[in-house]
Each structure stands twice: as structure tokens, then as C-alpha cells.
């Protein structure tokens, strides 16, 4: 009986120690979304029960190893103990009940993170190898995701090529983006600050670098930013020409695959491209004139450059004016 009493006391001591230890280590990043509060609540419940289970196994284990170790000069076997069915049933049924409770909590918290606000702000997200771009309803595209605080946002996410995954650690939630369908990502930012979205699903060689800033600001700051971006975008389209094209190319992440310094990335470099003779994979040669460049943006697999596989470059959502500006920009890169 003495053994059980000691073990009981030790378990009661170790359980809170483990729980508080994990808590004190600040294992989670800061909480920047309403959903993160739910996730962290669930995490704490997990840790509480797991601390107890850890103690329940470790205390008797270590205690036995010390107390029941074979002493110097001791011989013979241990006392055979008959298995006790009641005990076995107990340690099957209690975990079973615990599982039921946890599954309920899991379902409940999942529901909490999914509560949809009909007035949520909608932003379209496009992921492709290896960049993000964000299309705002006001008709401009940005490489930074700006969000107003305390308003639910739903990201309508699309992938142009392979599977990516949208993850901001401070928001907790993670959602894969599967080509051929639109997936939703719903969060409510609650803390002003700058975070980073990082692709969490291996998406090819430069996966590690598929990151973009996410900025949560006050409604006023957000509105100001939107107005300014929308005006700049309108001005850009109106202006057209190579300078506008350069900005548009950056916004759409062209540089992720097409270098400006002659390096061979996933796609051919743009340096020295205009006016050159391009060898295609079907054996023919074509002059890199305006028509060719335009076609290569609008229908990327029509003419594929020798040494590069086809089916890699996606079709981007670009207006004719934008394509024209980008082509004009490329033509300056002689």
C-alpha cells in the first residue's frame, strides 16, 4: 500500500509541474487572430491531460526501476502476479471516456474556428511557384496582405500550379491550396503588427522562400492603404509602358521563375531576350518579338523554350493592358 501512496503523491506533484513547465516555455507564438485563442485553449487542454498521462506512466516506471531493481547478490525471480480483468477493463474504459470527451472538445473547437461572418472581407489569393499575390476587391493586386483589425476576412485561395499551403503562425490556422479549386481561409485578426505568410506544403525547390508579409493595421490605416493602392494601380494601368510593366511583373511574381541577370531559374531568363532568336523544344526557332512575348504570357505552353519542360508556367489573370505593359517592360531588357 505504501508504494501506491508514494506513487499517487508523486503523480500529483509531477502533473502540475509538467503542465506549468510547458506553459512557462511559451511554446506558442503570440495570438494574433480570434481563432488562435480557440486553438490555444484546445492546446492547453491537450497539455493538461497529457501532463497527467505522462506522470501516470513515468512515475510508476521510474519508481519501479529504482525500488524493484535487483540488489547486489539477490537471486531468483519476481513474484508472479495474476492479471486482473477488472484492472484491465478499467484502464481500457477510462481512456475510452477520455477519448470521447476529447473528440467532443476537438469538434467543438473546430466549429469555433470555422464560424463564418456573412460580412467578412473577401480577398482573392493566388499562389504559384514560389510567390503569393493578393487581389483586392478594389481592383488592385499586391504582394503584401494588408488586413484591418477585428474584422473577419475570408481568403478565396487558388493555386496556379501545385499544392501550396497558407500559414501564418500567429494566426494558427493552416489551409492547403489545391489547383483546380478555390479553398477558403477564414480568420479575424485581433492584434496590430507585421507577420509573414509562409507556404507550408512542399511545393518544389524554392519552397523555403515562398514568403510574403502580412500586415494587420487599424481600420483607418487599412482604408488609407487601400485607397492609395487603388489609385496607384489605376494610374499604373493608365500610364502603361515599361515602367508600369516593371511594377506589374513584380506584383505578379514573374521574377520567381524568370531572372533578370541571366541565371537559369525554372523559366528562361529575361535578360537579353527581346530581339533574340529563341530555340523551341519542337526544334524550330522563333524571334522574340512582341507577338511571341505576348503569346508566351497569354498561352504559356504554345511555344516552349528548348531545355525547359512544358506545362510548368500557369496562365495568369492579366488584362490586355497589363500584358501589354509587361511585354513593353521585357522589351527594354535588351
Amino acid at each position, binding site marked *: 500500500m505504501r508504494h501506491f501512496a508514494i506513487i499517487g503523491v508523486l503523480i500529483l506533484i509531477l502533473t502540475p509541474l509538467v503542465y506549468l513547465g510547458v506553459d512557462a516555455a511559451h511554446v506558442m507564438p503570440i495570438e494574433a487572430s480570434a481563432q488562435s485563442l480557440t486553438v490555444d485553449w484546445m492546446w492547453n487542454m491537450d497539455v493538461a491531460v497529457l501532463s497527467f498521462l505522462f506522470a501516470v506512466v*513515468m512515475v510508476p*516506471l521510474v519508481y519501479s526501476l529504482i525500488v*524493484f531493481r535487483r540488489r547486489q547478490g539477490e537471486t*531468483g525471480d519476481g*513474484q508472479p502476479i495474476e492479471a486482473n480483468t477488472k484492472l484491465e477493463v478499467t484502464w481500457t474504459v477510462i481512456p475510452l471516456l477520455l477519448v470521447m470527451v*476529447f473528440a467532443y472538445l*476537438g*469538434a467543438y473547437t473546430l466549429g*469555433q474556428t470555422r464560424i463564418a461572418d456573412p460580412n467578412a472581407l473577401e480577398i482573392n489569393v493566388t499562389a504559384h511557384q514560389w510567390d503569393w499575390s493578393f487581389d483586392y476587391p478594389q481592383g488592385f493586386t499586391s504582394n503584401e496582405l494588408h488586413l484591418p483589425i477585428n474584422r473577419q476576412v475570408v481568403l478565396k485561395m487558388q493555386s496556379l500550379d501545385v499544392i501550396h499551403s497558407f500559414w501564418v503562425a500567429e494566426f494558427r490556422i493552416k489551409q*492547403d491550396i489545391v489547383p483546380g479549386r478555390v479553398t477558403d481561409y477564414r480568420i479575424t485578426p485581433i492584434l496590430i503588427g507585421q507577420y509573414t505568410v509562409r507556404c507550408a506544403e512542399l511545393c518544389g525547390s524554392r519552397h523555403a522562400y515562398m514568403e510574403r508579409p502580412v500586415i494587420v493595421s487599424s481600420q483607418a490605416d487599412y482604408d488609407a492603404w487601400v485607397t492609395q493602392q487603388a489609385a496607384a494601380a489605376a494610374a499604373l494601368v493608365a500610364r502603361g509602358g515599361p515602367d508600369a510593366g516593371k511594377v506589374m511583373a513584380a506584383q505578379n511574381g514573374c521574377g520567381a521563375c524568370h531572372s533578370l541577370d541571366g541565371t537559369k531559374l525554372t523559366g528562361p531568363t529575361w535578360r537579353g531576350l527581346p530581339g533574340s532568336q529563341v530555340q523551341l523544344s519542337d526544334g524550330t526557332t522563333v524571334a522574340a518579338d512582341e507577338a511571341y512575348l505576348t503569346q508566351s504570357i497569354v498561352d504559356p505552353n504554345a511555344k516552349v523554350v528548348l531545355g525547359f519542360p512544358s506545362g510548368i508556367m500557369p496562365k495568369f489573370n492579366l488584362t490586355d493592358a497589363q500584358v501589354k505593359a509587361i511585354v513593353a517592360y521585357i522589351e527594354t531588357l535588351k
Partner: protein
Amino acid sequence: MRKLFASALARGVLWQLAGWLTGALVITGIRMVMGLKPLDTFFFTEPAWVFGAFIGVLSFIAGSGIVGDWFKWAKGQQTPEHREDPDGWEKYVGISLDHKVIGIQYAVTSLVLLVVGGSFALIFRTELAQPGLQFLTLQWYNTLMSLHGIVMIIGILVGVAGVMNYLVPLLIGAQDMAFPRLNAFSFWIVVPAVILLLSSLALGGFDTGWTGYPPLSARAPVGMQMFFLGVFTAGWSSILGGLNLIATTLRMRAKGMTAFRMPILVWGAMATSLITLTATQLIGLAFQLVMFQRLLGMGFFDPAKGGNPILFQHLFWFYSHPAVYVFVLPGLGVISELLPVFVRKPLYGYRWIAMSSLGIALVGFLVWAHHMFASGMNQYLQVPFMYSTLLVAVPTGVKFFSWLATIWKGKIDFPTPMLFVLGGIVVFLIGGLSGPPNATVATDLHLTDTYFIVGHFHDTIFGGYVFPFFAAIYFWFPKATGRRMNERLGKLHFWIMTPAFLTLTLLMMRIGMLGMRRRIADYDPALGFEGYHIVMTIAGCLIAFSVLIFLVNLVRSVRHGEKAEGNVWNSRSPEWQVPSPLPSHNYENPIEVIGEPYDYGVAGSQYIKFSKGH
């Protein structure tokens, strides 16, 4: 040396390479005749490489001569039931039908693969010590990381097969496996599979991880196809090995060995084999479908053609989740098998432990989609899969509690195998306890695809497989060789590996939660993970160093270990009641079970007796 070159191994490999080249040339020739482009980035075109590789595997089978007896049977000829092996090491590079030889062939192959896969990890672990790229390119990083995953997995599958092959017939008192030729075939097919896998290094590698999700895997270099074909080929080893083991256990048991009098490891092996027999087919199919998508443009997973990328994930995880139970169930069986020996007490709750193995295997078939909580699969599937996943905790808990009750009031000894058993229990506990946060969906949405997962599964696999595997080697080494491994080196191995490993995985979990994603070649210095990565790299090197100690100990002990031909561990198990090493066909006098297997400390109890002669 000449004997080595004349061996089945060397013949098979040479034939494979020749067949590969021939197949590739045939396709290239056909392409030239048809006016298609004959050569590509990696010299041959993709269809040529794939067809050649396929012919290469068939050539290996033909060249090594493993199917010779079956051909004779098809022609209506008789072959002798048993075959005598040559003495000495040659039998290990030749075709043997003795399950003990095959078991050792498996185990050695497994060790080789674990060393290769571990070296890959060491390379990219060092690369990660600092942010930025130091000595690897992105493609090399991704390839090594992907190959580390699959080489380790195949290595573990092979190791599991080794443990089961060597032990199960001995434990149930059989002369051999039910189908000895199939058994040899199952082993030998691994060799061409491994060659295919490693050849991907030379063919552009693949940057998809071992999961090979399309559409990414539909765009990777030709190395991707070698990976698919290699896994597909190795899968046959698993399937046929599982089939053989089930048939052996059901049909070849000694007299009196009823289901609940079998050594407990056999239950673990049965549960594992049920999974390998059935579920392996699905990963094979999933990989085939991507291969055909690449070769023939069949749009199974291409959304532009009405395909569904998520379907691949379902097919893939239907095998790949149960696969982790394939890794751990025999390991947990080893723990249950060895604990009673070293605490000198009966195994507590034998029937419950036996049933929990089956329970884990069966529930394991129903949990696969918990790998896909963030994948965009149908949302109504999330909650049922959370339930089934958490349910795994119940039979696993039964095992832990039964082990505790087994240890309770024992007389505990601590030789090296026992240390690894206890280390396995602790590490598996941590792996197990880090599981539920991944099951409760909301927390998983944060944790999935981060280093938390990496730490979690390394804990489960080390606790459930690697520690018990080492325990099994230290424990049964005297049975196989008649010599003991050095205790002092064994303990050194344990005391270096365990703390280093725990440091490594706990830090993985920590930085994972803070924002370290899985499978990245480089990380943002702004995250402040540098210090952690340096410590983790040192820990990784220490693990490698401890394994080196183990390998030195292993190789040295084969010839110079202390002689140990008797019942070294004072075990009740049948294989220890006869002198080591065992002759082929095992027991000269058939055994008969007359008592309970684990009645340590019960006066006058006996597990088996030997009946006289055949």
C-alpha cells in the same frame, strides 16, 4: 572476392544493369524509328528510363536465379524440399531458403539502409545549422531530404521483415516459413528496388518529399519515376512477406501452441502482416497512377482533365498511415517479449496486449485522413477521422499500463537489451503523447506540416522501432552467432543515443510550434532559430557517433565476442532451450507446448518440452 562476384547478389545486380540499358536502348530505338526525340536532359528520355528500369528489375529476378524452382515446377519437374547452404559468409550473398539466413540478410540490408538514410539526414542537418545555403543546392537539399524519408522507411520495413523472419518460425516452433522460396523472393526483390531508389540521385533527384504528392510529382525530374518504381518494387517484398508470415503463423505452429500461448511478438507480427498484405497495394497503385500520368498523360490527378489531386492523398495515406503501425507493432512486441525476461515476472495481461496489437492494426485502417485535415478534403470527414484517430490511444494505453504492471515488483536487471527496451518505452511515450494535439483538428491546423510533426513521428518511430530493434539485436545476437556483443560498448551506445535523440526531437517540436515549417532548405534568420539548429545538429552527430559505436561492436563481436552458446538471458522462450547457433531447420526434436509462455517465478512451470525425433 571471386566468390562474391559469383554470388546471386552480384549476378542479379549485373543483370539488372544490363537489362536496364537494354530496355532503355530498345525504347530509344523505337522512338528514333517513330521520329520522336530520342534523347533528353538525362541522356535517355523518360519512357526509356522507366521501361529500362522495369526490364532491369525483371532481369535481376532472372539473373539471380530466385525463381528457378518455380520455373521447374511450371515445367512439371520436382525440386528437393530443402537445400543445403554453403558454410561461412557466402550463404548470405547467395540464395538461401533458410528463414534464419534470410532474416539476417534482411537485418543487414536494413542496417545498411539505415546508415545510408541516416547519412543523408546528417548531410542536410548540417546544412540547416546556419540559415542560408552553405554547401547544398535547393534541389540537392530536397532530394536528400526526400530520399532520407523513403530510404529510412524501406530500411525499417526491411528490418521489421528481418526480425519477423528470423524469430517467428523459431518462436512458434516451425522448421521454416510456410513458403521458403517466396520468402527468398521477398528478400531479393528489395535489392533491385534499392538500386532504383538510389539511382534517382543521378537522374535529377526529386523535390517532393517521400509523399510524392501530385501535381508536384508530375513535374519533378526523371528521378521521381525511379522513386515510384523503387517503392513499387519494394512493396512486393512487404506484401509477399506479410502473406508468408500469416500463413506460417496460422499453419506451422508446434503442437499445443494455441493462439494465446504464442510468444507475444508473434501477435505483433501477425497484426503487422495483415497491414502489409493489404494496404501496401494502395501506395503501389497511387504511385502507378502518377507514373502513368507522367508517361501517357492520363489525367487522374490533373484538375485540367477532371482529375483530383486529393484522391492521391487518400490512396497514399490509406497505406502510409497504417505503415507506421507496421513499423511499431513488431517493436512493441519486442518490448513485451523482453520485459518479462529482465524483470523475472509474467507478462501482465497477455491477452489484452495481444488484442491491443490487433486493435491498433484494425483502427489504423480507419484513421488515414488525419494527415489531410488541412488538405481541403471534404470537411464533414474531419470529425469522424478525429474520433478514430484518438481511439488509437486506447489500445496503446493498454500496452503501456500492462508494461507498468509487468515491471511492478519484479526483480529488474539492466543489461543492454533491457536499457533499449526501457528507452523505447520512454521515447514511445513521448511520441504517443505528442500525438493527440495532432488529432484534435483545431490544434492540428497549426501543427501540421511543421517541425512539431517531424519531432512527433521521429519519437514514435524511434520508440516503437529503432530502440526495440537495437534491443532485439543485442538480445538475439548470441542466438544467431553463439557470441555476445560487448556490454560496455552497448551501454555507451545507449547513453549517448538516448539523451541526444530526446534533445533533437524535443527541440524539433519546440521550433515547429514557433513557426519552423517542414521540408525547408533554408529558414528566415528573423525567426531566431539558429541556436536551436546548432544544438540539433550536434545532437544529430552524436546519434550518428553512437550508431558507429554499435556497428563497431557488431562487427567485432561476430568473431571476437565472448562465447555464449547457452541460455544467456535465462529466457523461457523455445529458441533459448537449444544451443546457439541453431542448425538449419531449427529444432532437431520438435517442440511441444505444455504451459504458459511467461510464467517466470511460477514454481515448476514449463513452457515447452521436446518430443523425441521425427
